[in-house]
């Protein structure tokens, strides 16, 4: 879906608020929505639902494996069952349960993965989940969404509640740029073009979409480069059509995600591109390392998750496109900011 509107910064708000509010909307619409708590209900905002529908909320304690499989029991009894914890524990502690009990049963279980990514901040590496996109997108039957901001998180939460089958929504802790509104389109599985351009396609998810929009603006201002910016909020099922279309139009791609560069959005895009229309791709993300304590914005800089890396990667990808495949080996990792 093409969005013609310009995106402006509307303030900052954590995506987890969108999740919490979306759950309440679902609770109002459907009597069979139930929510399971994992002792951090005030952090992942399932507390909104608990306070509103206490009779449909159940505290399971610090027991992610149990909660995930209890959710399956509810789902197999006709409920739309949500469980939410931090992504560090809601995608990994229960990995087996997700694979066999949730996905193999095609159970109507929805997982809210909170406090995801590096922007958890001072809690440090143990709590900074940077790998779950890679795992979750390999699970058959799973739908995986990484919304870009508060408003989209709310829409996505409602949308996964209204679809049948396993789904996971990944959101974060800290207040991050808000730039979509009630009116911005959102459909599961449909990547949205947030800015048009034909020199380079920047495909991003989560908080990196905003960084991509800034990078596109800077590329235009400094170099006259026109970037197409795509919000690929649904990692699975991935929007093959939009990705191939962008590869053909731009001839070079940068992916950006708050996640390891291995196995995540970048890998999902690369799988599509390599099979259908090979073009150079550069990957922005965490480079095979664990996170660390620090303030969220500080960590985004330290771990290379800002518009600057997207900008530099775009220049590299364009350079590779222009040199042609035979020349690719000559391209070195130039730091374009120290030119």
């Amino acid at each position: 879906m093409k969005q013609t509107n310009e995106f402006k910064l509307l303030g900052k708000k954590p995506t987890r608020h969108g999740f919490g509010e979306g759950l309440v909307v679902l609770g109002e619409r459907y009597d069979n929505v139930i929510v399971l708590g994992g002792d951090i209900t005030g952090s992942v905002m399932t507390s909104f639902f608990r306070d509103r529908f206490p009779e449909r909320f159940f505290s399971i304690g610090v027991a992610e494996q149990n909660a995930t499989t209890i959710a399956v029991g509810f789902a197999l009894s006709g409920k739309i069952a949500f469980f939410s914890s931090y992504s560090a524990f809601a995608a990994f502690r229960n990995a087996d349960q997700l694979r066999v009990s949730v996905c193999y049963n095609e159970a109507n279980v929805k997982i809210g993965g909170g406090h995801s990514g590096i922007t958890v901040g001072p809690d440090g590496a143990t709590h900074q989940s940077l790998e779950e996109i890679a795992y979750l997108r390999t699970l058959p039957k799973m739908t995986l969404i990484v919304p870009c901001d508060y408003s989209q998180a709310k829409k996505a939460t409602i949308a996964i509640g209204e679809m049948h089958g396993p789904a996971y929504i990944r959101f974060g802790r800290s207040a991050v740029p808000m730039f979509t509104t009630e009116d911005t389109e959102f459909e599961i599985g449909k990547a949205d073009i947030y800015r048009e351009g034909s020199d380079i396609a920047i495909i991003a998810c989560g908080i990196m979409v905003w960084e991509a929009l800034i990078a596109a603006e800077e590329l235009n201002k400094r170099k006259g480069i026109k970037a197409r910016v795509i919000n690929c909020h649904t990692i699975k099922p991935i929007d093959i059509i939009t990705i191939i279309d962008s590869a053909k139009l731009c001839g070079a791609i940068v992916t950006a995600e708050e996640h390891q560069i291995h196995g995540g959005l970048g890998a999902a895009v690369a799988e599509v591109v390599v099979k259908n229309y090979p073009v150079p791709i550069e990957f922005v993300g965490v480079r095979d390392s664990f996170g660390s304590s620090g303030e969220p914005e500080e960590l985004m800089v330290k771990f290379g998750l800002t518009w600057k890396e997207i900008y530099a990667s775009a220049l590299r990808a364009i350079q590779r496109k222009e040199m042609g495949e035979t020349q690719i080996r000559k391209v070195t990792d130039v730091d374009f900011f120290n030119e």
Partner: protein
Amino acid sequence: MELNIEFSQEIFENKRRQAEDFRPLATEIRRDIIKSLVLAKSGHSGGPLGIADVMAVLYFGAYMKYNPKNPKWEERDRFVLSAGHLCPVLYSVLARAGYFPIDELKTLRKYGSRLQGHPGIDMNLPGLEVSTGSLGQGISIAVGMAMSDKLVDKNNRKVFCLTGDGELQEGSCWEAAMAAANFKLDNLCWIVDNNDCQIDGRVRDVMSIYPLDKKFEAFNFDVINIDAHNYNEIIAALDKFIDNHKNKINKPTAIIAKSFMGKGVSFMEDDYNWHGIPPNPEQALKALEELSNT
């Protein structure tokens, strides 16, 4: 409000002490916790304060063999903080033991610090045995260490492990309990910080784990119930474990330490809302005042 935070530089010896001699040590540890947390501006206050008395006796009462000048000493006893979020108390204790400069407590949770928000051995903090933070895993690691010591290396080392009580909702804790008893790990001392608090409320309300002592007994542990703020009881419990180990009773020991979250700071005591937040400067000042009168 600007706070001028300075840390005392006193190093604590690891030796036999009279019960009341632990009090000033625990108070200093509590002061360290408050100071490092107010500087960090995030982190967990309640749990660390609540278990400070037990940690003071454990580390400075000659129950553990360790050498801060040689952190990797092969004969040392090991401590595993399964409840990784309680690390402010561990960092204080390790600093006071002399493992690293006390002023490093000022760097808690900052970028580049060896004092990560949850313990990470990737930062090479001396005295820290293992990375933890995902609840319920440390205790199984401790079981593995104790098995390695007793069943393979056949040495005399001991393993101590501290878990929370909310943490015990993780089913893997009970897999660890089963294994500890199955392998007759009398070299394992499992301490439960039983403050009945967790993030969402009282443990008994969020997901009851009770009765706790009977559970551990059924798993074939030697179970000792204590008041976690009574030094005589802490000493007696740790003495009992040492005897159990010496006498090779072929059972692991569980010390259920009935504690109060936030102990020592009146406005934090027994209040689960202090699980995961730091004091602000005003609160820190008030806390430090209270902690200078004990």
